[in-house]
């Protein structure tokens, strides 16, 4: 694995405005915002698989959407191979570097160029395929959009390769069918093939197995792992399930309320979590063996709403170890071991 980062996220913020009511407007109340992503920074090295773990509302999916330019960041930088996606998404052009530089292209071209190199796999395989398209057309669509093939044979060859790389062998057995003729696992393979056909460098896998049956989860995860081995694809895997993340990722970042609270090598984070939130998450993850039942560290209450974020450490209202100082100051990252950082004042 090379150490060069393909993706660098620097203090990314994404705030969504809350609907302003007529009464708010009359009372001249300030606009409120949902702090979906609130100052997130991390790097992903080329060829690495990083897990972004968090409960719903933690902002993990929003990070993925911002990386692909599907949402425009409020603040901060997203550098993909050195190019700032946040700028492109805003439609601001910033020409710099070599003549081939992406910055020279128009906004639409830039986004297209990004999508050629970075792709996404979605959560729900039953929903992410257009029910009216055949498998062939679904997988060939990215090629058409990007104008990558000139003739039918070339198109067929590339679709075939993508389908077979995704484990749908033989390809012609599948490509004339419609999505509803396939099982959940097969559909998720089609989604992956649709992304692979562009030969992307970065794949954002947004909860790709959470809707699948247990018996086929492993095969999709194994497929993702093999893509890294065969094509060197970098994968950002977002999930709420620590156990699947533990199975195949290199590093893990745990998010809480729009922030990363702990980041480090997966095995280390799972075996020796430092942040109380990670500790709690690890302790409540169900273990498939009654002999290994553990003491659960259950956090009371629920994730607070991301409109009014608690002051100080945003985890303090639910933290079993919280002290007075946690209410006042926002904890910085502390390096626990090399590459393993956590944001907690008690460390």
């Amino acid at each position, binding site marked *: 694995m090379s150490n060069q980062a393909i993706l660098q996220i620097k203090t990314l913020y994404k705030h969504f405005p809350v609907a302003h009511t007529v009464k708010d407007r009359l009372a001249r109340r300030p606009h409120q915002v949902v702090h979906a992503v609130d100052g997130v920074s991390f790097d992903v090295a080329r060829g690495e698989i990083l897990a972004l773990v968090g409960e719903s509302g933690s902002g993990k999916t929003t990070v993925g959407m911002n990386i692909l330019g599907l949402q425009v960041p409020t603040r901060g930088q997203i550098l993909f191979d050195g190019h700032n996606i946040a700028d492109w998404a805003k439609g601001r052009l910033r020409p710099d570097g070599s003549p081939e530089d992406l910055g020279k292209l128009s906004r639409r071209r830039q986004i297209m160029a990004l999508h050629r190199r970075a792709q996404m796999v979605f959560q729900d395989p039953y929903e992410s395929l257009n029910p009216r398209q055949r498998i062939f057309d679904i997988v060939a669509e990215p090629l058409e959009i990007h104008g990558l093939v000139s003739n039918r044979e070339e198109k067929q060859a590339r679709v075939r390769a993508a389908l077979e790389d995704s484990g749908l062998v033989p390809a012609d057995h599948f490509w004339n069918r419609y999505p509803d003729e396939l099982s959940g696992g097969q559909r998720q393979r089609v989604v992956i093939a649709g992304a692979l056909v562009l030969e992307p460098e970065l794949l954002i896998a947004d909860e790709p197995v959470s809707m699948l049956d247990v018996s086929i989860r492993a095969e999709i995860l194994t497929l993702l792992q093999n893509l890294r081995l065969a094509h060197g694809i970098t994968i950002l895997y977002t999930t709420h399930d620590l156990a699947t993340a533990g199975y195949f990722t290199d590093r893990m970042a745990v998010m809480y309320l729009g922030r990363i609270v702990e980041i480090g090598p997966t095995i280390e984070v*799972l075996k020796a979590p430092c942040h109380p939130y990670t500790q709690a998450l690890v302790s409540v993850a169900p273990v498939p063996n009654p002999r290994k039942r553990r003491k659960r560290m259950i956090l009371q209450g629920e994730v607070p709403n991301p409109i009014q974020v608690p002051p100080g450490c945003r985890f303090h209202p639910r933290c079993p170890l919280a002290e007075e100082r946690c209410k006042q100051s926002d904890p910085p990252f502390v390096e626990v071991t090399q590459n393993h950082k956590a944001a907690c004042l008690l460390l």
Partner: protein
Amino acid sequence: MSVLDVRDLTIQYLTEQGDALLAVEGVSFSLEQGRSLGLVGESGCGKTTVMLSLLRLLPEAGRITRGQILFNGQDLLQISEREMRAIRWNGISMVFQGAMNALNPVRTVESQIIEAIQHPDMKINSQQAVLRAGELLELVGIPAKRGKQYPHQFSGGMKQRAVIAMALACNPSVLIADEPTTALDVMIQAQIIELLETLQKELNLALVIVTHDLGVVAEMCDEVLVMYGGTLAEYANSDTIFNDPRHPYTQRLLRAFPDIAEPGSELASIPGSPPRLDDLPPGCRFQPRCQFGEEQPICVQQRPDSIEIAPGHRTACHLIAELER
């Protein structure tokens, strides 16, 4: 004596074309007061169908064609609809999958609990009912005054708690919970598991957890029934299922389930997908995906019966004797 004893339950669905699909076949289990049973299986394995049939709540197309459901010795399939109504909620109550949909959006949470409390057999006046609804809400950790609110003012976890409170309204002896933790966040899941465990101990409930999540079962069940393709695959106590599984399906299912205690360990998925109801294999339903049954004519042609291989341990596999060797 078992509070719930299900014998040879067989259920069909009638399609619009008039075909009958065998959704559940020959499922048997029994449950004693104060014990908990996990009914596990992948989607479409018939576990929800079994659960609904216990209260005779199958959808219009469903037909129970064989078997007995004995509740305290009384066969629920032989009584009238009126007698059945008296057993619903009073004897056996349910927490349905997707708590958000189990509450009527235009009525207050409290009124929906009261409605269950004022079961014809309960003989309780409205003032007492309000008090009791408050008690139930407090029991599951919701402040009683929030009962005056509507479901959309509750978070997902609170709705699930409210639905559990509602299920306890008539002091049932059996509580059936269908996927009680699915679609909830990890931490809320843990809260609900903890709550169900506490309630089961305090109220001495017979608890049936219907779920696809082996982890939940391992956490809270005494006994486990693994279903595959509408049939019983393996039925034993929890420790046996997780540490000494005999049926090839159970074994492979466990190997496909990631264990957080051992990150980085190998996972093996089961190739293929579960059989569709309209396309069931003639023999053992797991045979097309089973690594042992590939060339065994008996597996291809005949459906295995469930047999008791040890006291309280039943499994349905032709090759069980050979596999042991």
